[in-house]
């Protein structure tokens, strides 16, 4: 079964579109189809043709569409187009090879593009910055605002020092 291209859940809707002899297949789950207005959000309302056209045209019309689908990873051989169709990456290096289109996807799925949280023990000495960020986030979550203020200052200091000038 194909996963939804937008969120990775099992897809229940499969759209095939052929434009200029180029075939595009879109897989969506119910929730994403609703959020993209392809499925009606309320029972009784009708199928939204405009939403569908927008989705399909958006794919063809994206200026960098040709560039990103042609990308492939030299390590595992996965093509970006294949990832778009199947929703699974092939190896760790894909995250660098496909960084540009992935950033847009991460922004959409997580509303964030940078990790903030646990760091493997063996990476902790070299990962001062993310660790500080994680501690800061944890302090805010636990409403330890005094700790958060201290951490924020340390983070600013460190970020300033790390910036190449």
């Amino acid at each position, binding site marked *: 079964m194909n*996963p939804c291209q937008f*969120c*990775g*859940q*099992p897809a229940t809707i499969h759209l095939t579109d052929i434009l200029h002899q180029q075939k595009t297949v879109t897989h969506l789950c119910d*929730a994403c189809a609703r959020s993209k207005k392809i499925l009606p959000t309320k029972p009784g309302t009708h199928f939204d043709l405009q939403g569908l056209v927008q989705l399909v045209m958006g794919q063809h019309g994206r200026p960098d569409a040709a560039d990103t689908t042609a990308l492939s990873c030299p*390590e*595992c*051989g*996965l093509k970006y187009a294949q990832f778009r169709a*199947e*929703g*699974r*990456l*092939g*190896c*760790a290096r894909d*995250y*660098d090879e496909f960084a540009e289109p*992935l950033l847009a*996807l*991460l922004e959409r*799925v*997580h*509303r*964030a*593009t*940078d*990790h*903030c*949280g*646990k*760091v*493997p*023990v*063996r*990476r902790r000495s070299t*990962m001062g910055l*993310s660790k500080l*960020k*994680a501690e800061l*986030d*944890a302090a*805010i*979550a*636990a409403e330890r605002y005094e700790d958060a203020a201290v951490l924020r200052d340390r983070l600013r200091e460190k970020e300033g020092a790390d910036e190449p000038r």
Partner: protein
Amino acid sequence: MNLDSLLPNLGEWLRGTGPESDVVVSTRIRLARNLADLPFTTRADHHQKAEIEQRVREAVAKSDIAPKLEYLSVMGLMPLDRLFLVERQLISRELANALEGPRGVAFDSRESVSVMVNEEDHLRIQVMRSGMSLDETWEQITAVDDSLEARLPYAFHERFGYLTACPTNVGTGMRASVMLHLPALGITKQIEKVFKALQKINLVVRGLYGEGSRASGDLYQISNQVTLGKSEPRLLSEIREVIAMILQYERQARTVLLKERRQAEHDRVARAIGTLGSATMITAEETMELLSAVRLGIHLRLLDDLPPTTLNQLFIHTQSAHLQKLAGKALDGEDRNAERAKYLRNRLRDLGATPQ
């Protein structure tokens, strides 16, 4: 390992104890991890999957994880045993049937800690506990994670965090789920409203057996959607806040039920016990629904013969693979429904369960 030896046990998540156990069945956290130097499972060939399996097995064996984990290869298991592990929440349906090649699971005798190997990610570490227990579960799983990481180089990215096969899991790789029994919100038709509110704040609601499964027996799993950009403690505290709110709604709805339609509820529970104790054929789905009514009856004190733990045993033993193992033979369709009804009749007669 002889899987039949697990049959009389309940497994950690069905102990029926722990904080808030009138509504919260269990807490579960899973971490997705991959080895840095091998392709993700979907693009790994048989040989590479065997290497991943071997390395994880070694790391598990040499680690100081307490309690001790024992490894079981899924390839060597009969379909019935695979389904048995799915029903006990030790492996996913995908690992059982959809995926191919070397793969398996390591778990402890209490069935609290499990590590799936070669699922969508090389490692899927999971810790389950009874009741509402997000902090303890996190402390335990992060320790298990550390001791595996000491022997396995994880794929970790300066910017994106723990790398996963699906970008929806990248960052922390953490999915924390709390399983709730919400019958009163169902009866009073408020459940949809609650779930709409959850979707707005990026939490996901699923049925009992995870992704894509429908809610049966009024059991729901609430979990975080986002894994990137927020720390684990922050994600956990967001879930905790929402669960606290849902608990309050469910308990309010239960109070209203008792106040406004006690007689009708009592009747519903009595009929559920009656059907469970006298049917000659019953589906898993109907069993789940009736057990849900009984579970609510116990907590509303409309029925006091059954401890929740016994109810959990009826619940797990009437699942398809468990039932067939208890019967000692493969059963399908009508035979299985007849066997399920027979099991329930006998157990309820032995327990002497009757409505108050």
